[in-house]
């Protein structure tokens, strides 16, 4: 029932924003061949890039199975606390008509989800003006519905594809602060890409943290991807470059490059990262994705992380990890709203299949799960 209502929201969002694009993407990787190239965002070279969903002929069977699996995982994980969901809010709705206090409680719920004040106020102001213009009747269910829709609408039209290079070896670089789950994300994505028929090489670009390379090596075993490692303390750029050269020589088409976690205010480390990106972009490699991995428990600092990493290495999208815990990851709303970065993937656990395509509708609904505590 809940699910059906979500779909309604989705349809509405799609109408408003011409967001057919988003709808296709919500179906994970199933839409092979459906994506018309014309939907590619302006500024990207259509010849040089390909969509992750447009799988090569012959590999169409496996990824579908894989994606069904992912789909199931996502449903069950996201649906986890659906029952407790908005019990307090709904109780409130039954008791009374929408008034300023209701709106304040909604704002609190957004803040508790780490959405942050500016974006929370932006969303609430939208509701207020719609209430004033009588576009909304003041019915609580309708209000929540509208709020979820406008949250989902923030993400509409976002480019959730993982792009590939046509002419050179595709490099996806993973960046972020310490402990957000970069290495784990790479491991899971490697498995997924291999299942999708791609030949993957992992670049152990985190040469700083003790045993980070070993950790990635275990993921390479689990996923069946090749790995190129340097010595501890080796220049990460050279490790990444070696991995690309290795991939090129072996005819592998995708390099997933790990990098050491770094806090965005450490300018020397950010310079190092810029160098990694520059070097990875040289022949025979081409960096088509720079993915910022963000921990869902992160608070308002997530915005600074996104801003600084984007400034340094041109982040193309966000991977939101650890969404299987109690944290809601609402900061991605602010990141999307204020910086315009797309959210591409979501991590839902430690298992190798716990990585799914970001779904704004589910995300919006989950924001209010157990939303009002205290």
């Amino acid at each position, binding site marked *: 029932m809940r699910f059906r209502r979500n779909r309604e929201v989705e349809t509405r969002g799609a109408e408003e924003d011409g967001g057919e694009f988003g709808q296709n993407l919500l179906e994970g990787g199933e839409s092979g061949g459906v994506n018309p190239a014309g939907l590619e965002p302006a500024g990207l070279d259509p010849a040089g890039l390909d969509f992750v969903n447009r799988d090569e002929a012959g590999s169409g069977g496996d990824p579908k199975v894989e994606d069904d699996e992912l789909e199931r995982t996502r449903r069950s994980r996201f649906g986890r606390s659906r029952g407790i969901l908005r019990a307090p809010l709904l109780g409130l709705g039954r008791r009374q008509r929408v008034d300023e206090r209701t709106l304040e409680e909604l704002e609190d719920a957004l803040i508790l989800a780490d959405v942050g004040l500016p974006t929370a106020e932006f969303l609430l102001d939208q509701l207020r003006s719609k209430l004033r213009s009588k576009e909304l009747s003041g019915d609580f269910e309708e209000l929540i519905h509208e709020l979820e829709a406008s949250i989902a609408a923030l993400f509409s039209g976002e480019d959730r594809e993982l792009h590939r290079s046509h002419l050179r070896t595709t490099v996806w670089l993973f960046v972020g602060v310490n402990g957000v789950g970069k290495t784990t994300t790479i491991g899971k994505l490697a498995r997924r890409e291999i299942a999708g028929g791609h030949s993957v090489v992992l670049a152990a670009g985190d040469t700083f*943290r003790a045993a980070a390379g070993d950790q990635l090596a275990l993921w390479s075993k689990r996923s069946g991807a090749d790995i190129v490692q340097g010595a501890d303390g080796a220049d990460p750029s050279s490790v990444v470059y070696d991995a690309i050269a290795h991939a090129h020589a072996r005819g592998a088409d995708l390099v997933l490059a790990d990098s050491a976690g770094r806090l965005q205010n450490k300018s020397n480390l950010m310079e190092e990262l810029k160098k990694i990106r520059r070097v990875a972009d040289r022949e025979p490699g081409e960096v088509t994705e720079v993915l910022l991995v963000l921990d869902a428990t992160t608070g308002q600092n997530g915005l600074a992380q996104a801003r600084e990493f984007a400034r340094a290495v041109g982040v193309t999208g966000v991977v939101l990890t650890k969404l299987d*815990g109690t944290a809601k990851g609402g900061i991605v709303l602010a990141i999307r709203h204020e910086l315009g970065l797309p959210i591409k993937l979501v991590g839902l656990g430690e298992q190798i299949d716990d990585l799914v395509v970001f779904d704004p509708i589910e995300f919006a609904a989950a924001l209010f799960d157990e939303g009002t505590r205290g």
Partner: protein
Amino acid sequence: MFETLSDRFDQIFTRLKGRGRLGDAEVDAVLREIRVALLEGDVALEVARDLVERIRVRCSGAELSKSLTPAQQVIKVVNEELTATLGGESFTLRYASIPPTIVLLAGLQGSGKTTAAAKLAMWFKQQGRHPLLVGADLQRPAAVEQLKVLGREVGVAVYSDSSDPVAVAKQGVAEAVRVGRDVVIVDTAGRITIDATLMDEVRAIRDSISPNYTFLVIDAMTGQDAVQTASAFHSTLALDGVILSKIDGDARGGAAISVKSVVGRPIVFVSTGERVGDFESFHPDRMAGRILGMGDVLSLIERAESVYDEQATLATMESLRHGRFTFEDFLEQLQQMKKMGPLSSVLSMLPGLPKEMKNATIEDRDVARIEAIIRSMTPDERINPVLIDGSRRLRISHGSGTTTTEINNLLRQFKEMQKMMRSSVLAGGLARATKGRKKKGGRVTPSSK
């Protein structure tokens, strides 16, 4: 951030000038700003609410201090409340009477447990102890490997095998007894709080080794979820303290205060960098300033309050009101400032100084030269700089060891300053000052022609 928060306060308080008490309207407006600042700093919503209420009680109708601007006064109250909440009981680590002293570390994935374990081991070593590290994180690939590398780095042995976490922890403690280590630090796997199996597992570890201390390791960048994480771990493990990691980032670290309020146990250590030595005891006052986004400014406010000579300030303000700002007043101001520390940081805090002056860049060594110039003036010249002609200028330059160009510059700047002072007093809406100046203006203008 300090700029914005304190500027916003200043704006709110401009209405307040000339009144003796903080009004309710102003307090409300300021509390709204404080709430925003706390939430932007990731202080948990309910904790922020409590704090704001406590601050309201202390600010409503409070008398205005003479040495601080109203904005600074409120910030001081906020700071005191934050510090009190963060501090409270201080932590003293007591070693077990029968060694080893057992420390258990728990937390979410990626919070920095393994790194904290190694840093803690190093800390114990520096205290003259002989720690053993136990790697009971068998979940994350290569976690034990990481601990072993770090253990080598700090020169502490690491015990682990790949059976199961509870057994490893237990055997680790037995191993410490066997080889005569007096401290055992047990690193556990990161776990999410809603995973009952994993929470049961960490409880089983605790039950099997009965640690003397159980610490929660939490990331300083954590948002609102800090409350849930802390309370879940606290109810499972009965925490003794908290280690706050990654505070070398630019996160404001409101999680610290959230966790402290929920768990009620002290924050014991902070992890301040990627190197094993970057590990310190926790200072509530520094954290308070950071959460508000005001850093060292808070301590400057305190210093300003204690050092600032009220009488001298009043005298200066008095002469300002009469539109007379002389080199004597200027010298007095410089003396006051020098007592407080580096000029650049102090200037911005002086009550009543206009913005233009706050932004002026004055170097400390320039101040010494300015002082020398003023001290080479006669009392008459200091009160009435118009007297200073070419030959006096030469005398002053000889006396102060400066050039006449420097003296000219100072005279010109001083004139600008006088103008600004007058206009700022005017803008302040002090009726008396306005009247005085008008009267004075009426007399002075004709005679200066």
